């Protein structure tokens, strides 16, 4: 049973700032969650609900105020570069290195033997469709291509777990549709466990095996919805009745929480002004 759980989250809460400070924020409240080995779990919720915080806690980048996380049965303390790779929203490529050097550098940090790095870098860049752009600098690429490069860097690390923090969040709708389709094809070939944070209902339904819906701050998992549809998903899936029904179900769940989050933000702004 435990063997099937890649990430086990138990009673995780996280606060930013000290309890008596004005800036004290309860980002995450008593969250428990299991991520099965090989599944793709989407975290979706209103802004500031703590879904990115949870992702960082899972990856050992952030120590939770209370609760604990186990990765493959071992407690998570600090980054685990051999088990977990990240794809961040943007600006995580080193601008002074070419695409190829960026991918190579990740493996250097992780400790991959020199001889193996180049083969893996070429393979992963080819997998994301950037074989022709290895000598480009990030600044010379479009936002979508930069995220492909970041994905290639994460894939080259050959970790069992991939944590993606709104990787397509800064891209336009068409680009993110294409990237979503490519990602679904790419990930169907690997056995990776993936946690994917997103704002987009459609992206969540299209990519996920399960979708965890967060409540407004302090965030916790409100409900988990299963999308029973095999990978790789075809573009037609996005126009199917099943897709629409699931998307509507998610929207209904999220709507009240987003309203709550918006009124929180409004009152926080008013407090700040006063």
């Amino acid at each position: 049973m435990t063997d099937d759980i890649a990430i086990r989250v138990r009673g995780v809460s996280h606060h930013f700032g000290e309890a008596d400070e004005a800036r004290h924020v309860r980002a995450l409240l008593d969250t428990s969650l299991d991520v099965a080995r090989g599944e793709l779990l989407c975290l979706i919720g209103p802004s500031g609900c703590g879904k990115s915080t949870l992702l960082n806690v899972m990856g050992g980048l952030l120590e939770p105020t209370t609760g604990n996380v186990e990765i493959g049965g071992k407690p998570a303390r600090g980054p685990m570069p051999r088990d977990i790779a990240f794809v961040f929203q943007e600006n995580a490529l080193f601008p002074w290195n070419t695409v190829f050097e960026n991918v190579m550098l990740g493996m250097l940090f992780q400790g991959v033997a020199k001889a193996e790095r180049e083969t893996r870098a070429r393979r992963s860049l080819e997998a994301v469709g950037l074989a022709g752009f290895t000598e480009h600098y990030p600044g010379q690429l479009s936002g979508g291509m930069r995220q492909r490069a970041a994905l290639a860097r994460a894939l080259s690390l050959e970790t069992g777990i991939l944590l993606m923090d709104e990787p397509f969040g800064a891209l336009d709708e068409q680009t993110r549709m294409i990237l979503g389709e490519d990602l679904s094809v790419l990930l169907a070939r690997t056995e990776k466990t993936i946690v994917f944070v997103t704002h987009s209902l459609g992206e969540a339904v299209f990519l996920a095996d399960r979708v965890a819906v967060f409540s407004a701050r302090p965030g916790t998992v409100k409900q988990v919805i299963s999308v029973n549809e095999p990978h790789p998903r075809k573009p037609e899936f996005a126009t199917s009745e099943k897709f629409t029904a699931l998307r509507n179900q998610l929207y209904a769940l999220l709507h009240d929480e987003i309203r709550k989050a918006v009124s929180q933000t409004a009152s926080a702004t008013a407090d700040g002004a006063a």
Partner: protein
Amino acid sequence: MAGRSGGRGWSLGSRAVQAAFLIMLVVLWYLATTRWRVNPLLLPNPVAVLRELGDILRSGEFVDDLRITLTELAIAFALATAGGIVTGYVISRAAYLIRVFEPLFAGIYSIPIILFLPLYVLFFGLGPASKIALGATIGFFPIVLNTIAGFGYVERMLIVAARSMGASDYQLFRYVLLPAALPVILTGLRMGFTIVLLSIIGSETIASLAGLGHRIVHLAEGMDMARMFAYIAFVVVIAVVLNMIVSTLEARGKRQ
């Protein structure tokens, strides 16, 4: 109007305007000393200045002064660089230190430190030591400020990404912090170099025993105006050449 769209034509055209401006200044200078009869004690004839310059270069009279000024410059710049980079790096490691020292150094940098030259002369004497100490002090500030800015404001996302992939402290420095900070530090070094040169020649003209600045004031006091102008022209050329070298090194460093 047409030149604005064509980059190369525009740059050639503006170069021509710059050259014409300088030539016009020399022509005005020449006319002032010949046609408009300005007193040669105030403004010597440019031809006479050129003759003196030729004499200075042929006789090799400038060598001792040039060596002293360049030695002062080299030592002062080396001290400012070492002090500025080490101090700046240490401060950049803690947000608290940045909050305390960055405004402090920026404040000191904005006052004319050359005012303290008399104090430096009292402490270090009239010789090169006081010029070196003053130059190092003045050059320290732009270098330390740019080092703090370079190392202290590296995009946080890059550091998080490197750590998540398992970068060690050394790897983080070598592959993330250093390349991120280098362009900013190089700019600080160029700015530091320019004001070290300025303050050394300046302080030589105020209180000194030797050096190019000293020579210029010495000639002025002896009313040897044509020769003084020739030395000024010599120093201008040296300064332009040094600044070009430093700018080239800066540009090359930033490319890598």
